[in-house]
């Protein structure tokens, strides 16, 4: 007797609801064991990890702040991935967007420029992100060079561009030659909901992007094209869709969203340009995109969930005095459970009698 996977013919609603719950239960049990082994009170640890962030208004706002860039980037990436275009370099597009948009803030610093500055930053940031993403897309369609490699290498280049600018030409003249630009003027700062809060209007924009992407994918021809090219490239070609143009389009959109996320992030939470403006958002967003099953609403939930694990992990470091590594291990295990339980939605287990023929099949 052996267990094998079998594709479900139709997706069951009950399973779709139960699978995340199963992941949660497994996580809680594993977490309790892990913390007990470490000599920490298991129930309290789980409370700090999962309940505290959800019950404190401050932590909820911080979750939204943390999830915002992930949502922007992951929605864009999901369009790429649906169309079989492999953009791995969102981190670089994020940085270039931040650099280009932030550049306007640097250029207008102290000039008393009007309220047009922030909208201009957002537009330029998105445009720069799109252009930067078009480099690998162009290399792909023109020369057949792998977009995975080119987009990944351009991440390192973007980091160094930012580094060069903030240490060189854009350095704050009053900043003792430290690697930051001058602080952005108020017209270049994304407004927050209240004085004391970090929750900013970028989060609202992220929600709009989720809704927009959901509408585009579900009910427009472009959305259909994206889904078709990804699912059945040959059929799409017969239908007259240009798969090369689609690579360019989806890369441009995801680059624009990543660049937008970058400029939103520097104008809302950092307030100037400096190295290290991204804690790896471009890479985390790849997990978010797949965790959300490349679906805009799913991505929203996945981003909030990941934000919860970051903030809960920070709480655990402070209150339980566990090292960061423990929270990382826990986060990894958690993601594994969610990914594994996802399987149940598409497949079911079946017990098979062990006979020689079946041994081949698995």
């Amino acid at each position, binding site marked *: 007797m052996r267990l094998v996977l079998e594709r479900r013919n139709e997706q069951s609603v009950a399973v779709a609801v139960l699978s995340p719950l199963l992941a949660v239960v497994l996580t809680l049990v594993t977490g309790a064991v892990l913390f007990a082994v470490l000599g920490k009170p298991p*129930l*309290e640890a789980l*409370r700090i990890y999962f*309940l505290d962030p959800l*019950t404190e208004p*401050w932590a909820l706002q*911080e979750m939204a*702040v*943390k999830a915002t*860039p992930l949502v922007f980037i992951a929605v864009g990436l999901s369009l790429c991935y649906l169309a079989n275009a492999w953009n791995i370099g969102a981190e670089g597009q994020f940085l270039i967007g931040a650099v280009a948009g932030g550049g306007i803030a640097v250029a207008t610093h102290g000039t008393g420029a009007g309220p047009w500055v922030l909208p201009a930053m957002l537009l330029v940031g998105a445009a720069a992100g799109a252009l930067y993403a078009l480099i690998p897309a162009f290399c792909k369609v023109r020369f057949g060079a792998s977009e995975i490699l080119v987009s990944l290498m351009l991440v390192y280049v973007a980091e*160094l561009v930012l*580094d*060069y600018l903030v*240490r*060189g*030409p854009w*350095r704050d003249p009053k900043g*003792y*030659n*430290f*690697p*930051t630009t001058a*602080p952005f003027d108020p017209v270049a700062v994304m407004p927050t909901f209240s004085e*004391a809060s*970090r929750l900013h209007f970028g989060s609202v924009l992220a929600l709009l992007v989720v809704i927009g992407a959901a509408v585009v994918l579900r009910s427009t021809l472009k959305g259909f094209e994206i889904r078709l090219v990804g699912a059945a490239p040959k059929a799409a070609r017969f239908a007259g869709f240009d798969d090369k143009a689609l690579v360019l389009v989806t890369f441009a959109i995801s680059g624009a969203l990543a660049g937008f996320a970058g400029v939103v*992030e520097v104008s809302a*939470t*950092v*307030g*100037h340009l*400096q*190295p*290290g*403006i*991204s*804690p790896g958002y471009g890479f985390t967003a790849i997990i978010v995109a797949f965790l959300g099953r490349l679906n805009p609403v799913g991505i929203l939930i996945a981003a909030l969930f990941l934000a919860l694990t970051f*903030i809960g992990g*920070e*709480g655990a*470091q*402070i*209150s339980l*005095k566990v*090292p*960061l590594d423990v929270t990382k291990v826990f986060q990894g295990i958690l993601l594994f459970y969610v990914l594994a339980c996802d399987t149940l939605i598409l497949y079911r287990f079946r017990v098979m009698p062990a006979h020689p023929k079946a041994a081949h099949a698995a």
Partner: protein
Amino acid sequence: MRRLFVAAAVLALALGAGAAQAQNKLKIGFVYVGPIGDYGWTYQHEVGRRALMEQFKDKIETSYLENVNEGPDAERSIEALVRAGHKLIFTTSFGFMDATAKVAKKYPNVWFEHATGYKRDKNLATYSGRFYEGRYILGQIAARMSKTNTIGYIASFPIPEVVSGINAMMLGAQSIKPDMKIKIIWVNTWYDPGKEADAAKALADQGADIIAQHTDSPAAMQMAEQRGIKAFGQDSDMIKFGPKAQLTAIINNWTPYYVERVKLALDNKWTTGDVWGGLKSGLVQMAPYTNMPDDVKTMAQQTEAAIRDGKMHVFKCPVSGQDGKAVECKGGTHLSDEQILGMNFFIKGIDDKVPGK
């Protein structure tokens, strides 16, 4: 389903009540930029934190957050420490400056200490080390010990602390041998042992027989040991990694400062301030002088004593820039602290350019 939620809520309340027990200890928080296992910058701060626990035992409680990103996360991480009841918070990297200043403004009843920055407030003090003092001594030793008259310098990023360190080393070297040469490699990282070792090898292959570094790991020291050349340690005493190679090391010793500030906080006498401690305060320490003849050792000790007692200043005027012209002397007989804190020029005798200039 509904019942499940109610049960969860009750459980949460019960647990919450249990956790909110009376706390009379002073809670102290540390925000680190690297992992405590970096055996470099962050590790030395962690040594300070552990020393606090040792000294004050149950009068205090300490927490730390490691590998905190200097961008969007910093403000949240610092605020999370405040909200968990920490009353004294040390943020230990330059990149935390703006975030620390923002949170300090928001919580006037919490004391903050930011390392290596320049923004201060009623409840935000700054502290740093005059590491350049040690580097002058390294320069003198290098000039006495080098046969090729070439120092190899592994630099991280062109921030003033690194630039002033290179200048101080060359001033020291020139005080012995005016024609000493320095080769500089910027590795664009604080922390990549492999790359630091590669840079050290490249410098040695190009004829440098004394390696100095302003990066965190002992990789260069180990390489020097293998190659049979000499090197200076950084952040901590690296003699273990180079028993035949290490001449001395500049040790970042934060413990005395942390102890002093925590004492003040416990007595409720904490006030803001700006401490830039050097050899005198013990914040900068020299590891034992090893692998050198006695006369070189004596010279190093004398220079160390002279700097410590204030009899000499590393950036004594006139200091000539690369163009040979003397730099404006804002501190009377030596460059002002402000000039050193913002240093972005190389002195005469260094052929390289300051990146980004």
